[in-house]
């Protein structure tokens, strides 16, 4: 079981100071390789967005909002302007939770975003944020806060990536989400890291009465190690949370990730769906739904495919009910592509590679995330390269 433990990360081997870039008034002035890298993770500095936040290494370089009622600020700026954000800053997450949360608390804070959507404001275009690591050996420590006020609605796309040529880096990220009464947050995160990058995000969200939290997580490329376990508390009656994750682990990747939903009020519902593929990497696919109130319903589904040799998928779905009347269920499966399915498609004229790609695309089922077209296309393109290069 030893290889299932996440690789050790030595905090001392990363640089936590001094990597700041000059502010970027016009993000479309970025050079084309960076732009391309950002587009791959859903961040498009040339298309219409309700707001944009960009951070390079140790400092924010750009924040802008194109919509009234949408605030996009760097976290330090927001802490100054709003007297330390006492209601929100380190309120959902305990600084002592674990080694990396402690480190995030102690190391110098490099930035991160504060996004607040004012009551009743429904934003149709997404707000995009990007946490970009450009320097080799950089340790990045960010803190993000999202507040969606009563009756407001927003889709935030967060792209996390390393620049071309960055080998090793560490990303620590604290994210706290506050979804007020009747508000809805769709949070899409696309990760594209480098070979030796370690990632330790710590995320907690609190959803009030009739609030909705939808999360999409996409990780398709190689990374040394990701370890994360976002937790959502459905504290208000009628609140809903749904997580969709699509994870591919090539050789050399260790991905230990899952989602937890706490059904803490009557009438709450939670769903966790993950699709994982290993192509030689290790995936620990976790998930936990805790039913502490009635009525409440939760369903957890983790499905994994092992392609090629050497990969491991360890699915750990957990359910905990503490009241009579909770309804919790889960299904988990780890398997391979059925030869029968490949031959069925081959009988329609698809060659083996096309058939495999079609089945893998269907399995990952990115469609259900309802992403903007250009992001979906970029994800489809990435999936297509996976198939031909590594899958079979």
């Amino acid at each position, binding site marked *: 079981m030893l290889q299932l433990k996440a690789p050790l990360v030595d905090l001392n081997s990363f640089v936590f100071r001094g990597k700041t870039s000059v502010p970027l008034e016009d993000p479309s002035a970025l050079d084309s390789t960076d732009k391309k890298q950002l587009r791959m993770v859903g961040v498009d500095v040339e298309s219409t967005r309700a707001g944009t936040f960009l951070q390079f290494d140790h400092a924010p370089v750009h924040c802008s909002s194109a919509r009234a009622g949408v605030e996009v600020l760097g976290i330090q700026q927001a802490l100054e302007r709003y007297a330390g954000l006492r209601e929100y800053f380190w309120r959902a997450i305990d600084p002592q939770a674990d080694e990396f949360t402690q480190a995030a608390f102690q190391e110098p804070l490099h930035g991160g975003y504060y996004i607040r959507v004012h009551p009743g404001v429904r934003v149709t275009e997404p707000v995009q944020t990007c946490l970009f690591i450009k320097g080799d050996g950089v340790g990045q420590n960010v803190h993000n806060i999202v507040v969606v006020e009563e009756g407001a609605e927003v889709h935030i796309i967060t792209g996390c990536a390393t620049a071309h040529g960055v080998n090793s880096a560490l990303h620590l990220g604290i994210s706290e989400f506050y979804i007020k009464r009747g508000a809805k947050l769709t949070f899409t995160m696309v990760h594209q890291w480098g070979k030796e990058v370690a990632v330790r995000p710590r995320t907690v969200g609190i959803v009030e009465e009739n609030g909705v939290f939808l999360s999409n997580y996409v990780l398709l490329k190689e990374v040394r190690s990701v370890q994360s376990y976002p937790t959502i508390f459905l504290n208000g009656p009628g609140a809903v949370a749904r997580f969709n994750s699509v994870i591919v682990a090539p050789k050399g990747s260790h991905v230990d990730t899952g989602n937890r939903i706490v059904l803490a009020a009557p009438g709450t519902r939670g769903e966790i769906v993950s699709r994982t593929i290993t192509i030689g990497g290790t995936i620990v696919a976790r998930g936990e739904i805790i039913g502490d109130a009635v009525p409440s319903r939760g369903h957890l589904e983790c499905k994994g495919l092992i392609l090629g040799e050497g990969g491991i998928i360890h699915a750990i779905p957990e359910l905990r009910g503490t009241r009579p009347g909770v309804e919790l269920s889960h299904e988990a499966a780890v398997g391979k592509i059925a030869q029968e*399915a490949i*031959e069925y*498609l081959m*009988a329609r*004229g*698809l060659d083996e590679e096309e058939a495999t790609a079609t089945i893998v*695309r*269907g399995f990952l089922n990115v469609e259900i995330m309802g992403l903007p077209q250009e992001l979906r296309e970029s994800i489809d393109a990435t999936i297509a390269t996976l198939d031909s290069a590594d899958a079979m």
Partner: protein
Amino acid sequence: MLRIENLHVRVGGKEVLRGIHLVIEEGETFILFGPNGSGKTTLLMTLMGFSGYEVTEGRILFKGEDITHLPTYERARRGIGMSFQRPPTIHGLSTRSLVQLCARGRAVDVEALARRVHFEHFLDRDINAGFSGGEIKRSELLQLMAQEPSLVLFDEPESGVDLENMALIGRTVRALLDKTIDPSPEMSMRDLRRRNTTSGLIITHTGYILDYVNADRGQVLYQGVLCCDTRPTRPRDILDHISKYGYKECIRCFN
């Protein structure tokens, strides 16, 4: 169109087909009868080139070309199409997308084709997910209409189909074989006839399908060999004999 010469096939180490000779001409529909386990499905699977069906002797010619060892998709691209009896479910692949894939880049009006088999409400469902017997048949026919094969292999088109659906399926099979799926108005009857080059190989137990298609010839497959190949045989007569006397009697009679 199709010529099978002395075909021997092993499945799981056991010889299932023991020297099949069969010719199906252009535009001809051939009916294959036979009891369970006689090797009918094996013959279709071998023609399609699936794994696990090992040709130990003989060969298969399609439009004059030896396809005995071609991969499945090459056979499909050359014009062989098959209707599956128990197709697999593929999650996340909509019926619409698969029908589109069957057309291999040709423009097809998926909605219009789907309406022909009353399947337009299934287009966004994952392919074969929870489909009933009749729905599977309609989905298979829809895919074949988009694929436009010149030889269609049907494995029991009537199995699991209720009477109401049987008429629809029968008519669609007929249209597929007659190439009247998409008759364009500007085409003369002569052109239409010239287009009529689709051949069929149909396995049937019940013979219901004979009410709908113009079946030219038929034979009985029994213990891995085709019987009654000495004279042209009408599928109706074979069916009558089978229902009256059973397979053993039928073989004695026709030999």
